[in-house]
């Protein structure tokens, strides 16, 4: 993909994200009915899309890692790293927004009894440790391959974390789309608009971060050439 196309892609995705997020939050606050018994339910329109964006970013990082191992093309190393970086940011946002919701609904910021929460935390910590592994190894093909293998292992945790919320027998974490409070069509539409917005936001941030890292790499190259 050419640089100008990538930069235009970031600009287009940013505009799309802004439009969808404004529309989604407006729908969630002014159009979708309030869920019964939970005045803080509107956090759902932020918390769940952000969590799904984190999964998507980790999955994208894993895909790029697989491409690196498959083709040995170095550019996938940076792409995988930036995707995981985004996943960690969205993962942290998921944990913080979830904690705020939990504090209101359950009366606690965090509970260790819920496997679903703990599994998401494990996924988040696993990918946070990716940076320790990456920066403790000198740059080069060996680091790229080790990081790619680690990123791929993490992908296995994504379905475990996602399905744990759906398969748990005893749970307090809501499973809103399939089980818990009956979700109405207005709520569902608002949710999907918000999800589109956070995915576009994640994509835009990914492209901006990638452009910054590539500019840094080119500057380093130039400095070496002019030294």
């Amino acid at each position, binding site marked *: 993909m050419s640089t100008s196309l990538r930069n235009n892609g970031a600009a287009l995705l940013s505009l799309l994200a802004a439009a969808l997020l404004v529309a989604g*939050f407006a729908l969630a606050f002014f159009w979708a009915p309030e869920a019964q018994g939970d005045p803080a339910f509107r*956090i759902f329109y932020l918390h769940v899309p952000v969590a799904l964006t984190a999964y998507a970013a980790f999955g994208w990082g894993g895909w790029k890692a697989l491409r690196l191992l498959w083709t040995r093309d170095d550019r996938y190393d940076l792409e995988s790293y930036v995707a995981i970086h985004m996943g960690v940011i969205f993962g942290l946002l998921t944990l913080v927004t979830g904690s705020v919701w939990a504090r209101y609904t359950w009366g606690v910021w965090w509970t260790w009894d819920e496997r679903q929460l703990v599994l998401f935390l494990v996924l988040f910590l696993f990918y946070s440790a990716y940076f320790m592994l990456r920066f403790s190894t000198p740059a080069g093909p060996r680091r790229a391959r080790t990081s790619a293998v680690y990123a791929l292992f993490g992908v296995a945790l994504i379905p475990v974390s996602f399905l744990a919320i759906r398969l748990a027998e005893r749970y307090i974490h809501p499973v809103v789309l399939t089980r818990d409070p009956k979700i109405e069509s207005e709520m569902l539409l608002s949710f999907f608009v918000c999800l589109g917005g956070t995915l576009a936001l994640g994509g835009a941030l990914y492209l901006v971060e990638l452009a910054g890292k590539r500019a840094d790499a080119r*500057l380093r190259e130039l400095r070496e050439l002019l030294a």
Partner: protein
Amino acid sequence: MSTGEKYVAAAYLVLFGTLLLYMALIALKVGRIQRELDELTRTARERAGG
């Protein structure tokens, strides 16, 4: 504003706060890249002239 609404506002502020922080970091990074590019351009021009 009810307590529930306060929690909703707090959660949304977390997202916007993070976005603003990220924008500030990107602005700093772009500023640094611009400074380094200026420096490298100057060095390249000096070499070409000398």
